[in-house]
């Protein structure tokens, strides 16, 4: 018990790093993913580029992408700190998944609604923002929560390039105290709690956002 209490401050601190890195990454991913989907809808020539991006990001491991950005980019003169590289990689990585989520969410809005909005004289921008976006976002909310969880789990990989997050902290404690069981048990428990908390938040938000559907 005493040993556990000694570990808690380090784990608390590391958990904040994990949360910060993954939420910052997910935020970038959300914005870039949303933009990718909007561009795909607005400019048909962009579609091929969109598909290429999705294929490249989803076809390779996150660790490989992180390595290219952290170790590869300095070769062409772009040197990022471990945390910056991690946030950027997580952002670019999750953007592909978020973009696909938005694509399916936009597909869930019946085309008839879009057509009738256009017939009634709403511009394409108005249709996008006032007809498609609110319904699509309500549809996507539970899936978005899922993707945030995936981003948190993927952030464990950033320990490999020495970001002081949970996995790194646990490894450091193990290598200084030589006790394995407690730090690693605490490590998986921390992630488990974190992801369950996010899942519950997403479910709550999802229920609130789709309240209008249930009357």
């Amino acid at each position: 018990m005493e040993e556990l209490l000694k570990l808690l401050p380090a784990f608390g601190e590391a958990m904040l790093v994990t949360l910060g890195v993954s939420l910052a990454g997910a935020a970038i991913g959300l914005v870039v993913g949303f933009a990718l989907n909007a561009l795909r809808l607005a400019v048909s020539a962009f579609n091929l580029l969109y598909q290429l991006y999705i294929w490249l990001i989803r076809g390779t491991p996150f660790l490989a992408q992180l390595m290219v950005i952290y170790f590869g980019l300095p070769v062409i003169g772009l040197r990022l700190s471990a945390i910056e590289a991690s946030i950027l990689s997580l952002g670019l990585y999750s953007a592909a998944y978020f973009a696909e989520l938005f694509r399916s969410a936009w597909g869930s809005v019946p085309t008839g609604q879009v057509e009738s909005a256009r017939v009634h004289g709403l511009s394409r921008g108005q249709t996008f923002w006032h007809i498609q976006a609110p319904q699509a976002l309500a549809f996507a909310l539970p899936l978005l929560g899922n993707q945030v969880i995936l981003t948190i789990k993927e952030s464990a990989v950033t320990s490999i390039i020495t970001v002081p997050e949970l996995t790194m902290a646990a490894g450091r404690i193990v290598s200084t105290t030589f006790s394995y069981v407690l730090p690693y048990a605490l490590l998986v428990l921390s992630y488990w709690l974190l992801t369950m908390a996010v899942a519950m938040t997403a479910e709550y938000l999802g229920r609130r956002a789709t309240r209008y559907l249930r009357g």
Partner: protein
Amino acid sequence: MTDFSSRLALYWPALLDGALTTLWLCAASMVLGFLIGVAIHLLCNGRSHLGRAFARVYVSFFRGTPVLAQLMLLFYLPSALNIDVSPLVAAGAALALNSAAYQSQILRSGFAGIAKGQLEAASVFSIGKWKTLLHIQIPQVLRLTSPALISELIDVIKVSAVVSVISITDLMRVSQQLVAQTYRPLEVYLVSAVFYLALTSLLVLLGKYLEHRWKEHA
């Protein structure tokens, strides 16, 4: 540019070797994960309360924590108990146990897709529970869920890059070794990403082919 092609000739055999390690490690974990996944699925629908609770916790645990953390736990925990576990066994176990949680969810829809009448007919013909599972349910489940299982295998391949941290010479580890030799991180990691891309893209094509074939037969 001729420089690059001669360096590529140097990378190529090592990366191919690593890619093969990645591929067979993932394939083996996938098969083992399928068997555990079936067991988890059966527990989930079993009569025992304890079994159902265990299956729920199992799935939630393995889907709620990072593979890297699971790998650390499986690699270092046994050595704390003075059991020697080789990195390869730890990596295979971590990938299999993790994939089993996801596969049990895929299998759920597969098992649900088999008409109840078949099971009733099997029991009327006094075919035992295990024989029914092995000869009637699993072959159909495999066919029903093959596209989802292929995309799970793709996920396993991508996730397997983390086993490089416990010094398994998979595609990622080989790339790191090449970087240490050549000091050319950008091109080595890009070429290794192309290898991963080739592996996953081939599997996507295989999944499409299977889906197409399955539709023709249905």
